[in-house]
């Protein structure tokens, strides 16, 4: 899973597999971070009020 695990190899298989994996994780992480931060910002600025 990480380059320091001994199964890790710098080969095409690992590059594709973990490339895809970390890419997906990054998108999810970044997306959620954005949402949470934006929500916090909106809450502080009370943009849009408490109605929808």
């Amino acid at each position, binding site marked *: *899973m990480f380059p320091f*695990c001994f*199964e890790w190899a710098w080969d095409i*298989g*690992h590059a594709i*597999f*973990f490339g*895809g*994996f970390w890419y*997906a*994780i990054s*998108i*999810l992480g970044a*997306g*959620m971070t*954005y*949402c*949470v931060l*934006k*929500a*916090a910002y*909106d*809450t502080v600025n*009370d*943009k*849009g009020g*408490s109605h*929808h």
Partner: protein
Amino acid sequence: MDDALIPEGAKRCGFPTFMIGIVIVGAVLLWGVYAMFLCWFKGLNQTNMNDYYGFALWIWADLAVIAVGGGAFFTGLLKYIFKVDELKNIINFAVIIGFICYSSALLILAIDIGQPLRGWFIFWHANVHSMLTEVAFCLSCYFAVLTIEFIPNILENRQANKVPFFHHLAHNMHGVMAVFAATGAFLSFFHQGSLGGVAGVMFGRPFAYREGLLIWPWTFFLFTWSAAAFGPCFTLLVTKITEIITGKKLVGDKTVHLLAKISGWMITTYIIAKIIDTIYWAWVTVPSMGFKLSHFYSNNGFYGYWILITEVILCGVVPGLLLINKSTRENPATRTIAIILGVIGVCLNRWVMVLQIMAVPVMSFDTWALYIPSWQEVATTILPVAYGIILIAVAYRYLPVFPQELELNKSADAAAQN
């Protein structure tokens, strides 16, 4: 007494009635939980699995719930990426069903493995060549996606939504949902596929083995495709059941017809591919390994050609045709028959691709191995069903799952008030 939590304007049964239902289903759930703990503390000797049947009822249940849970990713894909806006009326429910299916799948896996406390080795010591590794990674990532997709709906609960942060969070998540949905679709494509690959790569098992494209056997693509095709059937089926239990129309006909139509075409195209695959396998792959097709369907007390015919024709071709034909699709009775057959079909396919593989003898002097699950296996397999019912009940009661609910039931409510 829980009125404050119920979505505004929605009618729900009384709390005691609700609780009675929950308690009854909860009892089943507890039975399953008890069996689950037996398996965890006493080990897998609680099951009737054996060295011939290393994969059994649970893995079938796992594959089946993931297949029928495919409705979530496919509906999400259509809604958010292909902008089929009509599906907004069912997307929340599709996500909840998907969430239930995937959380169940993960739970089943946690019971199924011999050393649950080491389960994370699949990530840590990953063998990237194993289809199961691909399954584990994509499955858990996609479960995270489903959770993300489910959160806004939870936050839309009347009380939660009063919290400004939650309100804004839900709003913002809706805003970027297309990104999540796209990631989810990507992940789903791979884990549905690699679940198919699990069987297809076993070149020591002629019944399972398929040739394929690059590292992916044909079953890889067939599984993805079938999940996309039959998943919506399951979404529609659960919607129908929910409608019957609540006594309300929850999703508009237009949405249902659209989803059924998409499903129908997916099923039809899938089943054509499946038939081609089966013919190629039966006439080319299997004979090259020294087997006749009849080897897999004879000389045992259970597996006959009936299972192939049921899966492909009765539960594949028939629902496909019923759903692409406008009149049968829009007739509630034939549509319901079609979606039930479809769900059975995909489950049967997963059964065949797990259990029949284990049953078929490969060495010329080996024998068919049939097995009957123990009650612990049955209980833990029913456990997710009970859990799903409870989660749907709670979600339906407290969350605005069906955007059309109020509109569709206005006249009925008015009539009731008169």
